[in-house]
């Protein structure tokens, strides 16, 4: 088995991983930084982010405003100290990206332009046309090429963390092109492996977003926090789930049901704002959870239309005009044309909610440090505590940058004062993994990855969807258990070495099953409704702060299942209150219950 | 990353500049030249007088103190020759028949030789 020695190992070449690698290399040029990714960094799913990245920018805006929006958006489950740190550093990070060459969209005078985004009081979202993630990722990737101390390991698939007595020692990876196992030793490891949206059937995520990093840490005893909070994006294309960015609504797009009625006004988001005059936090610019829930309600009432067997509503952009669309939303026009054969300038786009983002993830402190010494996590795979029960659009790209930098710097500081563990310490772990991998191959097998994966994603969609109830969750859980047993019998029938995708998919499925289990069990344990987690059961449809103003922690048990425990929320300055959108926002005090009336 | 070996500057700009200038002439001047010198006379568009020896010599040598002749030779013969040489040189490379130093010397060498010949003939 090949052995390599590095100082810092970054797993993941998305926005978070690249930002961390650059920060680590910048901190001390004497450190060897390895950047591992199962795909070439610029293929990472950050590339698909369309809308933008948030930071307080305008005169009339304030850090307190961004803080409040984020905390109330999170339904008070965000760590407020983390949010404070975040809003304070987001601007500088976006500027840093600008100074690295990111082609942010501009105002006529050459200054940065910001756009509206759902759940944000005012315009504070930086964007690069409607390809913000693409430009951020490529800017970071290209900037990383400048750094001679960053060594890339492209198409290396990490299958295990090497841990010795609660201290990280490195990672074990499969070199995709040769099929060989490689042991990479390091003093600090940063997990930046992205989300887990692919455990659901309809999702906006790329095929690589399979929750690997979450499972890697979880299998070594690190808690996964707030896993029940899975964000549905209200506007995915039917079938493929391809995202139609929220920026469409920021620009003034409206949502219509099959009768052409702007149904959001019926769900606490009104009154109806005039077409072409979007208003922050009203109607289409309400938060994602509310909008996705409204779709579900419409579907129950039979008010959704049918698009080739998928229930849909419509996103109408026609009034924006061809020129404006081409300028502000060119990628959306391209996507609509290719995948539903529609020109948004002349016809409304059929859309439906799709799983978009995992708010939960690997538990870390404000320094991105996990419970294993030297193991850090950042980005969508982590739960640093920014998003709580519901993430606001455009906070996550900024998170990658703000906390990517923190993770890189912290890892570098730690690596400088740590000694590498001896090879011998991890030898047995490596041999065990090697034996396990070899045992996966067989000439034939009745079951397939595809079959199990399909059942998994459908079960999750059924049981852990926009609305949940006890019966559905229980049945999802038993399906998951059955699938896990089938998974143990599953074999890889392609025994070739080079580029064995069958093997990788097999391993990804294993990661996904573990993550799905934590989602389902956390959802069962939270018997209230909050943010993206909405229960239909009697007595659970409201937010219940006296019992559940706390984070769930899923910790792996010896039998492989998750046990749920709880962790208090850090509240610094904004005590829990109702979340209000639409006109209810004003006279919020005692008035009511937009949060749960739907 | 620092360069240890810096890539060698190509002399291609010289040839490309000639090629481009020749390309412009080929597109802007040559069609007219073919028309006026080959096609119209052949199809009887002009009277014989107009193409008589004295008139043509005079045009070539005397008009604008001889500059017209020079411009004509340059834009219809010399530069297009370099244009052609460039395309042939690269075309040989495309056909995997050359493209190396030999074809370069032959192509641009002939273009230069023929250009000199043309200039000599009007001098």
């Amino acid at each position, binding site marked *: 088995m090949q052995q390599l020695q590095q100082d810092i190992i970054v797993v993941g070449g998305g926005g978070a991983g690249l930002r961390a690698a650059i920060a680590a290399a910048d901190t001390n040029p004497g450190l060897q930084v390895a950047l591992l990714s199962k795909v070439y960094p610029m293929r990472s799913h950050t590339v698909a982010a369309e809308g933008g990245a948030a930071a307080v920018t305008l005169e009339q805006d304030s850090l307190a405003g961004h803080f409040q929006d984020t905390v109330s958006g999170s339904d008070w489950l965000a760590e407020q100290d983390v949010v404070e740190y975040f809003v304070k550093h987001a601007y500088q990070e976006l500027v840093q990206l600008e100074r690295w060459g990111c082609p942010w969209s501009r105002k006529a005078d050459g200054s940065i332009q910001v756009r509206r985004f759902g759940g944000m009081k005012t315009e504070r979202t930086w964007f690069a046309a409607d390809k913000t993630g*693409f430009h951020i990722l490529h800017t970071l990737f290209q900037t990383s090429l400048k750094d001679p101390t960053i060594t890339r390991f*492209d198409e290396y698939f990490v299958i295990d963390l090497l841990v010795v007595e609660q201290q990280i020692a490195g990672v074990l990876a499969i070199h995709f092109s040769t099929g060989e196992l490689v042991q990479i030793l390091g003093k600090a490891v940063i997990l930046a492996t992205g989300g887990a949206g692919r455990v659901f059937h309809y999702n906006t995520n*790329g095929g690589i977003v399979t929750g690997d990093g979450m499972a890697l840490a979880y299998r070594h005893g690190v808690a996964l926090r707030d896993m029940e909070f899975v964000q549905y994006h209200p506007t995915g294309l039917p079938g*493929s789930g391809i995202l139609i960015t929220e920026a469409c609504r920021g620009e003034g797009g409206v949502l219509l049901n099959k009768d052409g009625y702007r149904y959001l006004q019926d769900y606490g988001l009104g009154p109806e704002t005039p077409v072409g005059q979007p208003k922050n936090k009203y109607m289409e610019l309400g938060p994602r959870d509310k909008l996705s829930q409204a779709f579900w309600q419409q579907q129950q009432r039979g008010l959704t239309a049918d698009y080739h067997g998928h229930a849909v509503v419509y996103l109408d952009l026609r009034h924006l005009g061809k020129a404006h669309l081409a300028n502000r939303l060119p990628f959306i026009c391209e996507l609509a044309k290719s995948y539903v054969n529609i020109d948004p300038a002349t016809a409304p786009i059929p859309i439906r909610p799709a799983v978009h983002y995992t708010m939960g993830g690997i538990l870390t402190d404000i320094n991105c440090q996990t419970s294993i010494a030297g193991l850090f996590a950042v980005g969508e795979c982590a739960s640093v505590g920014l998003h709580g029960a519901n993430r606001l659009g455009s906070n996550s790209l900024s998170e990658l940058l703000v906390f990517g930098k923190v993770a890189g710097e912290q890892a570098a500081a730690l690596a400088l004062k740590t000694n590498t563990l001896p090879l011998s310490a991890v030898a047995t772990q490596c041999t065990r993994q090697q034996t396990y991998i070899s045992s996966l191959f067989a000439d034939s097998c009745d079951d397939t990855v595809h079959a199990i994966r399909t059942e998994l994603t459908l079960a999750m969609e059924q049981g852990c969807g926009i609305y949940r109830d006890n019966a559905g969750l229980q049945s999802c859980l038993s399906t998951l258990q059955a699938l896990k047993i089938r998974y143990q019998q599953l074999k890889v029938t392609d025994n070739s070495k080079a580029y064995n995708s069958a093997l990788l998919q097999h391993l990804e499925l294993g990661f996904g099953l573990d993550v799905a289990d934590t989602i389902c069990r956390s959802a069962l344990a939270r018997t209230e409704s909050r943010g993206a987690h909405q229960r239909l059961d009697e007595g659970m449809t409201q937010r219940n702060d006296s019992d559940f103003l706390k984070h769930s922690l899923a910790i792996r048990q010896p039998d492989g299942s998750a046990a749920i425990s709880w962790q208090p929320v850090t509240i610094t300055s904004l005590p829990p209150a109702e979340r209000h959108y639409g006109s209810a926002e004003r006279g919020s005090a005692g008035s009511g219950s937009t949060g749960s009336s739907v | 990353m620092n360069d240890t070996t810096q*890539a060698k500057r190509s002399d*291609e700009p010289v040839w490309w500049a000639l090629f481009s200038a020749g390309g412009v002439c080929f597109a802007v001047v040559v069609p007219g030249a073919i028309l006026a010198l080959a096609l119209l006379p052949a199809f009887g568009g002009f009277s014989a007088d107009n193409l008589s020896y004295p008139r043509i010599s005079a045009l070539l040598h005397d008009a604008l103190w001889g500059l017209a002749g020079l411009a004509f030779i340059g834009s219809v013969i010399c530069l297009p020759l370099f244009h052609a040489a460039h395309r042939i040189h690269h075309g040989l490379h495309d056909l995997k028949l050359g493209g190396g130093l030999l074809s370069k010397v032959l192509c641009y060498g002939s273009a230069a030789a023929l250009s000199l010949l043309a200039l000599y003939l009007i001098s």
Partner: protein
Amino acid sequence: MSKTINIARYNPQTDSQPQLQAFQVDSDNSTSVLDALLQVQQQDPSLGFRWSCRMAICGSCGVMVNGIPKLGCKTFLRDYPDKLTVSALAHFNVEKDLIVDMQPFLTHLAAVKPYLINAEQSSQPHRQTPAQLAKYQQFANCINCGLCYSACPQFGLNPEFLGPAAITLAQRYNLDSRDAGKAARMPELNSKNGVWGCTFVGFCSEVCPKKVDPAAAVNQGKVASASDFIISMFKP
């Protein structure tokens, strides 16, 4: 509707060259070549190809469809009523089935110093007007899919040629009003494997799924390189 798709298979351990294999897939109006490949992979899990975003932005799924470089996820079966043959991207070494070695491509990208070079320190953003942005914006839209390399015969003939995407990226930074690194980038562009490796075949721009027009970038690079040549003559 069932449809036949021929796939060029190659297993490095056993094959000496790619062989076509036919598969049946279900197809409707929205089935992409990527969808079809995913279906085939269910029948034969050993089929190797790259993909991720399935929305034409990550650049991983490039393949030849009937001999033309295409993004699998943005090419639809409906547009190929007759025969459909999918093979690995041309001009790259084939590692397995539809997976090619992208390393040369990445090396070429890195060679042009594709990052903003500017020594000025500041904690404020640069000013850049929409007009200044427009100068390079199109060239910044490259998703590094490599289709243009498979389209470019000059790259096929000479693998050392930096190629359309790398040169486009160099131009993207050279044209950026915030950049001061042109001098550092020019030596690579000035070489015979830089802009001068191109004969304006132009097919690169034809196949580019993002309308980047790399051919324009490369040939604008020639003008830049030629002026650099002249300037260098007047320098000691």
